[in-house]
């Protein structure tokens, strides 16, 4: 006899099963519909047509990003995910076989039975690993609550009861062929039941298995299982570039608290805690957990939308978005972007947190004093430091700097940035850059008094209106003077010009934006300038978040360092895309946390531990925070902080090494 698939063997009550299955499926579809409504109640973001299939395939099917830095987590996820998918496909195949065309016979059936057995084992092994990882290896640093146990145990229970059913069937009525189901065969072989006993037990376990499976299906869209749908959808979004900002008026007209994408992110989250593990604020002991922030925002959206199996009426007065994340936590994020690149599901807690900030800034409620002062300064003085317009070119005193408004005919703009222009210590950086440019015959003009704040941290703080206003002024100035290329020593400016302005002005996308380290890399290529040896120095390089993670520039500054004679580069434990934030981004420069160490101190300590003589960075905020950290953490005298540009300028022929 040819092997075939047994369906409803020993189960007479098909009608009861089908009624239950219909209910479960109905609840499942209804739940999916409710989720869909919840997502589409969010405002739409503007997206371009380009699409990154590779990213989606690599992340969704191979779980590539889960393995990074956490192989056990990767294996766990792959086992559960593929176990689930294979068993689901197996059920679909069996349904087709039973109702439409009978094809699960012969060798195909034998292979099918074997693969499904393996998938069941994979699923159970995955759950076992998940517990091993949580409680024995403790590799994931996870936060586990009841709902996580329910999900894991339910998956395990469904697989286990499936095997029981299989084993008892094989015990009660061994088929005429040898069934390639190792687990079922093993259960059959160890079972002590006689045939009638096995028949009865089979029937009982069959119903337990069925009810457990149907419960899982019905509960699926209402639980964190929604991750299974939301995460791939979110990864598809991730593969589509954001093409334009909504204007304030468009955003206002759309109402709603969070965007559709942000809502999907909240549902895609499984609370794996990777974001919090890498969060610099959390690492410094501050009361911020990006994971918890996403969870809180998700609960907020579900509450506001009346989401549930039995829909609740949404509250009469829509809850305020500004309260979606804890009052202090929402101001602690530095928007360093580490959570975003760490998240396998491409969730961006920092975007959700920023959205909360926009609501607070708009209502004027719960805006920290210093941050408010900064925003008012940017509004009034066009820079965060209350610097007078007349002093914006003070850094250039005694130098011959070409200014566009004074008639400089150049296509390249050297954008100095507020902190480099007004901070007396940091004015040395644009001065150094000017010296290098002069030595290299590198042509440029500056905007001078026309230059206004890039406003990265204004947007980070959620004051989009002010950001648009200032960005508009810079974009106008670039256009007025025919600027085709921008070089800046400030990564915050660079990120804003390269990644944000293109979403505001069509012409901005065509403008080449370089960080000064990239310009120096070009200038120094092939040993040009003949930099002189100023002695052996061990340096470590701190990747500024807005240059590295946010703009993808890691090698240029390192290549520049390598081309300086006598400089030996030592990498810190956390570098490149895993670099630890100094605490200066997204407006955090102006917010104090109620608890925890200064992030700059944490980084200064890590840098000092390398034994380097100099901590080199390439960002005014990183400089300030790490320099402060060196002093307050007691490393003064052992290590100093310098900007990359200064280090190069010191080695220019004819200059004194400082």
């Amino acid at each position, binding site marked *: 006899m040819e092997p075939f698939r047994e369906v409803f063997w020993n189960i007479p009550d098909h009608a009861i099963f089908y009624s239950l299955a219909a209910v479960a499926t109905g609840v499942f579809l209804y739940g999916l519909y409710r989720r869909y409504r919840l997502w589409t109640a969010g405002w739409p973001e503007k997206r371009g047509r380009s699409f990154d299939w590779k990213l989606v395939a690599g992340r969704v099917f191979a779980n590539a990003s889960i393995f990074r830095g956490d192989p056990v987590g990767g294996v766990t996820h792959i086992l559960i995910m593929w176990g689930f998918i294979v068993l689901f496909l197996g059920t679909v195949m069996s349904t087709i076989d039973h109702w439409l065309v009978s094809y699960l016979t012969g060798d195909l059936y034998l292979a099918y039975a074997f693969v499904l057995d393996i998938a069941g084992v994979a699923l159970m092994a995955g759950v076992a690993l998940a517990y091993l990882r949580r409680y024995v290896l403790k590799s994931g640093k996870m936060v586990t609550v009841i709902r996580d146990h329910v999900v894991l145990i339910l998956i395990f229970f469904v697989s286990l009861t499936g095997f029981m059913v299989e084993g008892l069937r094989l015990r009660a009525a061994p088929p005429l062929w040898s069934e390639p189901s190792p687990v079922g065969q093993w259960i059959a072989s160890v079972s002590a039941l006689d045939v009638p006993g096995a028949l009865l037990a089979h029937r009982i376990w069959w119903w337990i298995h069925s009810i457990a499976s149907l419960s899982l299906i019905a509960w699926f869209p209402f639980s964190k299982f929604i991750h299974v749908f939301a995460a791939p959808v979110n990864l598809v979004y991730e593969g589509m570039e954001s093409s334009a900002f909504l204007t304030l008026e468009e955003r206002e007209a759309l109402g709603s608290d969070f965007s559709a994408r942000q809502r999907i992110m909240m549902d895609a989250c499984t609370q794996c805690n990777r974001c919090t593990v890498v969060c610099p604020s959390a690492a410094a002991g501050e009361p911020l957990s990006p994971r918890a922030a996403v969870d809180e925002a998700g609960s907020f959206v579900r509450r506001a939308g009346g989401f549930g199996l039995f829909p609740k009426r949404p509250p009469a007065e829509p809850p305020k978005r500004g309260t979606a994340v804890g009052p202090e936590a929402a101001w602690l994020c530095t928007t360093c972007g580490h959570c975003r690149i760490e998240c396998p599901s491409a969730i961006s807690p920092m975007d959700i947190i920023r959205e909360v900030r926009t609501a607070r800034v708009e209502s004027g409620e719960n*805006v920290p004093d210093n941050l408010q002062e900064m925003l008012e300064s940017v509004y009034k003085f066009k820079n965060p430091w209350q610097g007078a317009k007349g002093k914006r070119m003070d850094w250039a005193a005694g130098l011959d700097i070409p200014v566009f408004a004074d008639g400089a005919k150049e296509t390249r703009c050297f954008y100095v940035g507020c902190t480099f222009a007004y901070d007396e210590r940091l004015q040395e950086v644009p001065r150094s850059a000017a010296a290098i440019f002069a030595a290299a015959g590198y042509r440029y003009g500056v905007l001078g008094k026309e230059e206004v704040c890039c406003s990265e941290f204004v947007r980070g703080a959620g004051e989009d*209106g002010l950001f648009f206003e200032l960005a508009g002024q810079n974009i106008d100035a670039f256009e007025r003077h025919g600027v085709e290329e921008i070089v800046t020593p400030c990564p915050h400016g660079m990120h804003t010009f390269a990644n944000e302005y293109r979403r505001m002005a069509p012409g901005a996308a065509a403008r080449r934006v370089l960080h000064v380290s990239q310009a120096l890399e070009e200038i120094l290529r092939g040993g040009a300038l003949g930099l002189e040896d100023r002695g052996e120095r061990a340096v470590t390089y701190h990747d500024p978040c807005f240059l590295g993670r946010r703009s993808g520039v890691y090698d240029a500054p390192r290549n520049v360092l390598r081309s300086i004679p006598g400089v030996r580069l030592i990498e810190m434990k956390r570098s490149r895309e895993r670099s630890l934030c100094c605490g200066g981004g997204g407006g955090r420069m102006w917010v104090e946390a109620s608890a925890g160490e200064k992030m700059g101190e944490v980084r200064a300590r890590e840098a000092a531990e390398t034994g380097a003589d100099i901590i080199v960075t390439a960002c005014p905020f990183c400089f300030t925070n790490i320099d402060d950290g060196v002093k307050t953490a007691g490393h003064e005298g052992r290590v100093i902080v310098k900007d990359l540009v200064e280090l190069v300028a010191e080695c220019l022929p004819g200059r004194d090494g400082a």
Partner: protein
Amino acid sequence: MEILVCVKRVPDTADAEVALRPDGRGIREEDLAFGINEWDNYAVEEAIRLKEKHGGAVTVATIGPAESEDVLRRCLAMGADDAVMIDEASFRGADPYGIARGLAGLARRKAYDLVLAGALAGDDGYGMTGPVLAGYLGWPHATLVTSIEVEGKKIAVARELEGGLEEILAVELPAVLTIQTGINEPRYVSIMGIRKVRSKDIPVLAPADIGVGAGEVGENANLLRSLGLSTPPAGAEAVMLKGAPAEVAQRILDIVKERGGVA
């Protein structure tokens, strides 16, 4: 409670290098940042808080150039109900007596319970407008106010005195109060908030609307006449240190050592 708040657009000169105009009667304004007078900002916030607590409406008013509209819009975004401007032309060059005269005319147009003004303006620093306005109106006034408690038709106000003292006054309404900084924490006004009040009408009143006749205010009617501005010469003991921060710090240390400040 009907409240009128008098505000002024002033340049921020705290950190700017202020240069005199060639005629010596004013300062060069090109590179200066302008905004609401700091004291007035507290006054507007206080008025809005009183309204939020006791009901009524807040009107903000200014006598100033057309650019002052930005300041008024900002006040509307903060939560003021109405804003009104007085045509500046006839007030050009007016001293605080003239300005107060105009504001008094405005205050009589509606039954206000309270008129608030900043204790001082950041540019000329006279600190007179409020008290003179009270004089024109014949209302009681209190200066340097750091808190306001409403008790029926009376208010209790705290005044900041030197030496860390505080005076509590009972004042009959209607009254004029000049507000000291620190009375509250003014809220943040977002650009979105300002945009939302963009289309709100801000009437511009002519002198006749506020009962001011031609020639009654303005430079020629002034009781105070500014003879000129100048930068005081550095005293004999003053030394201006210039140079890099490290050099300046070293020089300070040297000077302190020289004079026996540290061993």
